[in-house]
């Protein structure tokens, strides 16, 4: 009896520790978000700075209003930057899904000379950080022609979209998914009279929803928050994305943290929305492919 009791106590303790760990982890992720959203509504800058030294930083205390938000629209080209971000990131994600999945399909199913080498190169590319290729890429982008006859892609949408469409990690995710799909499905479609394009479009893509969601979320997050490349290739407000527009605040003194937080809160909302929309498939894919989200 006493052995059973001590076993129960041990189990309870283990569960308690498990919950405690979960709570700490949740806090680790939620508190910065909480700080950002709460601070965005604190219109008294002095109060906000005082609160930063205490737990009040996470609590909506003092004067609360939408003043910071209106100042964001007055002092920065937020709307333009938001649309720019939405356009460049949206195009990158959508085109990326097609291009990367098509390449993965070719690697997974077609037998051609150099396939193995190409696959090795794709996998090797995953570990090369963008910072390592940023400068050569900038030099290249500066030399490339465009359809209107101009030379150099700097200060444009295409320079923020095209270099990021092909993504080695996305190709790898799609490849892993395609090689695990039973070939019978494609062969059945072939017997039904489907062309390779039709098989890709009507059979493979609809079945790839979990991978598409994963690729979409990862690509979206990567591009939405990227500052390095826009800093290198964009001058002025016309093609500036949100991270670049946010830099407006950091050249000004005194720094208005309330405005910064209001800007950041508005810039964060789409990423949360994207994650919520794709969450179901994203989690399923992360579990099934063993890839950590």
């Amino acid at each position, binding site marked *: 009896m006493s052995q059973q009791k001590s076993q129960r106590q041990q189990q309870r303790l283990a569960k308690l520790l498990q919950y405690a760990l979960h709570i700490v982890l949740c806090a680790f992720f939620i508190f910065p978000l909480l700080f950002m959203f709460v601070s965005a509504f604190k219109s008294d800058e002095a109060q906000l700075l005082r609160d930063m030294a205490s737990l009040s930083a996470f609590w909506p205390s003092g004067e609360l209003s939408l003043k910071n938000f209106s100042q964001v629209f007055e002092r920065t080209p937020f709307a333009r930057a938001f649309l720019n971000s939405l356009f460049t990131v949206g195009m990158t994600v959508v085109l990326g899904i097609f291009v990367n999945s098509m390449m993965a399909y070719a690697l997974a199913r077609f037998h051609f000379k150099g396939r193995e080498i190409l696959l090795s190169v794709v996998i090797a590319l995953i570990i090369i950080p963008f910072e390592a290729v940023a400068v050569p890429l900038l030099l290249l982008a500066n030399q490339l022609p465009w359809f209107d006859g101009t030379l150099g892609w700097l200060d444009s949408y295409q320079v923020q979209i095209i270099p990021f469409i092909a993504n080695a990690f996305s190709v790898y995710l799609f490849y892993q998914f395609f090689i695990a799909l*039973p070939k*019978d*499905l494609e*062969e*059945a*479609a*072939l*017997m*039904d*009279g*489907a062309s390779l394009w*039709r098989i890709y479009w*009507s*059979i493979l893509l*609809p*079945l790839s929803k979990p991978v598409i969601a994963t690729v979409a979320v990862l690509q979206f997050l990567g591009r939405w928050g990227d500052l390095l490349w826009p800093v290198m290739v964009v001058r002025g407000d016309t093609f500036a994305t949100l991270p670049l527009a946010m830099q407006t605040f950091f050249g000004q003194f005194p720094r208005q943290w309330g405005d910064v937080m209001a800007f950041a809160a508005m810039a964060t909302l789409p990423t949360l929305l994207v994650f919520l929309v794709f969450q179901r498939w994203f989690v399923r894919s992360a579990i099934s492919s063993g890839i950590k989200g």
Partner: protein
Amino acid sequence: MASVTLNNIQKVYEGGVHVIKGVNLKIADGEFMVFVGPSGCGKSTMMRMIAGLETITEGELRIGDRVANDLPPVERKVAMVFQSYALYPHMSVEENMGFGLKINGMSAAEVRAQVGKAAEILQITHLLDRKPKALSGGQRQRVAIGRAIVRKPDVFLFDEPLSNLDAGLRVQMRVELSNLHRELGATMIYVTHDQTEAMTLGDRIAVFNKGYIEQVGAPMEMYAAPDNTFVAAFLGSPKMNLLPCHVSAADDGHLHFHVAEANVLVQPAAGFASFGAKPRKMTLGIRPEAMSWSFQGEGLRATVQIIERLGDVQLIYAQLAGTDSAVCVKVAETGKTCEVGQSIVVSAAPGACYLFNEDGKAG
């Protein structure tokens, strides 16, 4: 409907693996032909070549009067039912069945009509809105067959379609496939490794082994007169007992089959035309159901190893004295049995034995 003709078909994979080594076969219009053989014998590869899913290395494939070697699958007018069913998981049953018609330009109304007709034949009308994951194994099988039917192919190809079903459902689907063949009158080619399916379904059977066809014929003809030891052992359950022995003729019109020096089976010589007068090593074939056993008398001495009582019959496995060979005896269940370890005598009904020469060939 169409006939299928295979002229010296060969398949060599990259790396020189020779899978099909020259197959010649004519499958008549409306015939139900079964390709049967053990795993790796090439039967599925042969079917995939007919389907157009594998290239033909050498030889000529004719479907009807057209040479089909280089035709894409859809132009061969064949439909295939896969072992895994291969239903598109994201489509409903109706969409699965109509997919081929839709992408080949048929109007939505026509597709619906064709699918409805096939669904009626297969009694799956009530399942049309469901997704494959909401179907049982048997229902999925019907949908897969339905998908083939709606295309009205000249030739149906079935690649081990029943192997994922449980035993009861397999028997039921076997009957339904037979009925379907009768109803449609179409040419059907069916691949299986299960000799029971082959015997019950086929108008004719082609027994494959190591890339060759060993024998082609009607099921009962092949059962009664196998060309060689491979076919003899493959058709029939339990398989035929094949006993290496030394055969000699006696003056009294009998043959003596020495399975061991002091273990001899005596049979009238009349049924063994293949034996020349000269004593020699041969293989004696006796079907389990043609054997009987007793505790004493004439026959081969053996020791009982395993007894399987199946309700209607008993299978007695016994090791022949003086040899490593074992025999299986299949007798009706009468209540009488022996025990493991007991010595018994097994004998064969006169005229029920087969004799194969040193190459394993009959005659």
